[in-house]
């Protein structure tokens, strides 16, 4: 991206058609200082375009902007955080406690509730991210997306920003589930480095699933269709992962699907980090990062369809 020079503009420099341009407003600084509306407020800063970021600095800046917006929204309205905590709490409390007593699922000596907790963290993060496609369609209809697409933000940077914003929201949700799990007596690690790695895993997973959703949004273009597809894919993604049971107990065909499902890698990494069970952390991180990257590319390439 080439930078546009940030040169101060004078009132007179742009008023070739306006006969009223002030003859004296030719020297940049003087004109800038004098600029104000008749009712008073100074507009001196609004005459100088900001210096454009270029190169690699664009994407982190846009990602930061989108993540801040997500946090600001959550600060104003936490109701979504509370209502979204109900379902994971029920999974852990009812499903987890019951199956812990049944001893029906082989977990290699790990209490079933402990085994289940990382899966529920991954599930609740996915449920948040998978509806970002609906959000982007809503933003299209409300004009928010249109306005963002007219800013100097490459489409890939805009999608990356949305994807990481979904990751931030998913991480906050994950914190809530971790607290619930801890209250139910799940033996989780409190090693800060491992918890940071957990956050990275949740962010990458959130980024992938939000991009999957935004990609589908770019194909189906309407909220109604996307809601149907969203509901149709979330449960198969959940049940074909290792969130509820180990991959080893699945039938062969489901094991094959599970190997293609990024949620399985997310759950594997979360179990390894939070419970210390054997995990393939490098593979898990690699698959999640690769899936997020592919998702960003796919969603970015289809974003233009939403803009039309």
């Amino acid at each position, binding site marked *: 991206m080439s930078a546009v020079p940030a040169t101060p503009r004078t009132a007179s420099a*742009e008023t070739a058609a*306006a006969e009223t341009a002030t003859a004296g407003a030719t020297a940049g600084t003087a004109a800038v200082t004098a600029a104000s509306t*008749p009712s008073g407020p100074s507009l001196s800063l*609004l005459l100088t375009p900001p210096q454009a970021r270029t190169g690699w600095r664009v994407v982190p800046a846009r990602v930061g902007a989108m993540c801040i917006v997500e946090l600001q929204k959550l600060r104003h309205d936490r109701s979504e955080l509370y209502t979204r905590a109900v379902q994971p709490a029920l999974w852990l409390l009812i499903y987890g406690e019951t199956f812990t007593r049944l001893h029906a699922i082989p977990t290699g000596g790990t209490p079933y509730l402990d085994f289940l907790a990382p899966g529920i963290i991954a599930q609740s993060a996915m449920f948040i991210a998978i509806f970002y496609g609906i959000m982007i369609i809503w933003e299209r209809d409300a004009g928010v997306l249109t306005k963002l697409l007219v*800013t100097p933000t490459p489409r890939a940077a805009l999608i990356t920003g949305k994807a990481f914003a979904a990751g931030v929201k998913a991480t906050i949700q994950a914190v809530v589930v971790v607290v619930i799990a801890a209250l139910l007596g799940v033996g989780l690690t409190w090693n800060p480095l491992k918890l940071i790695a957990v956050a990275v895993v949740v962010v990458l997973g959130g980024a992938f699933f939000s991009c999957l959703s935004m990609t589908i949004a770019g194909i189906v273009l309407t909220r109604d269709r996307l809601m149907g597809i969203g509901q149709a894919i979330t449960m198969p993604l959940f049940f074909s992962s290792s969130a509820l049971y180990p991959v080893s107990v699945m039938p062969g065909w489901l094991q094959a699907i599970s190997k293609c499902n990024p949620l399985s890698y997310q759950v594997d990494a979360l179990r390894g980090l939070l419970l210390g069970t054997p995990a393939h952390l490098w593979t898990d991180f690699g698959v999640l990062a690769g899936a997020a990257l592919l998702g960003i590319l796919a969603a970015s390439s289809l974003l233009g369809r939403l803009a039309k």
Partner: protein
Amino acid sequence: MTTELDPATGTEPTEDQAAAVRCTGLEYAFGDTKAVDNLDLTVRTGETFGLLGPNGAGKTTAIRAITTLLPVPVGMIQVFGTDVARNKMDVRRLLGYVPQQLSADAGLTGRENVSLFARVYDVPRREREARVSEALEAVALSGDAHKLAATYSGGMVRRLELAQALVSAPRLLILDEPTIGLDPIARTSVWERITEIKNATGMTVLVTTHYMDEAEQYCDRVALMHKGRVRALGSPEQLKAGLRDSFTAPTLEDVFRHYAGSGFQGADGQSDGEDFRDVRRTRNTANRVR
């Protein structure tokens, strides 16, 4: 009118440099429907230019092409001499855009809404707070900046969107139906702010509107579009003068009717080009600002 020298070169600006927007032979079709048909249009630097026309005339398509939202398949668009098709990012830095829909984020405060745009336009952190405050002050929203945009009236939301567009110091402000659905007092308030800011900053304003009284009162020049082409172009006075043979005291609305007809579907059976989503969007916007 005085001709000013280019401050960078000290020479008289070329025709392209003096034009804020120059569309040449622009064409755009949705399937078989030609929304914009060989459009030639020039918006002069520093003027308030109104793009008028009935529903489906091609105004919004032209605006979307100028704002880089749509590709330019045929023809050329330049914004301050920069080719829109080749230098999208450079052009976007020159634009402030307020779409027809109420596009402020209801879940954020007024200040946060403007800050978001300061961030995406790379306003440095040390300057951001002051610049955002200035933009909010320019649209008289300083006192309500801490409130959620969800609590704003329609007129306040429009002013907030104006502040979002202003925070990057655009050279060209593009407004798509900025006063649709607003009551007369709010409409006047929005236009007063636009005019004040334009006069103070010298920016160029390109606006689409259905309100002929607004075009007459606030636009230096207007173009009347119909079926994708410009049918009439000039100052409101010039356009009205052209109808003096048929009317004793023609209004801009008479000019509109003269060139656009009744505005209903034509006798040739052609659609007016506006689809269901466009109508719904317009009505939703009008309903939301009430």
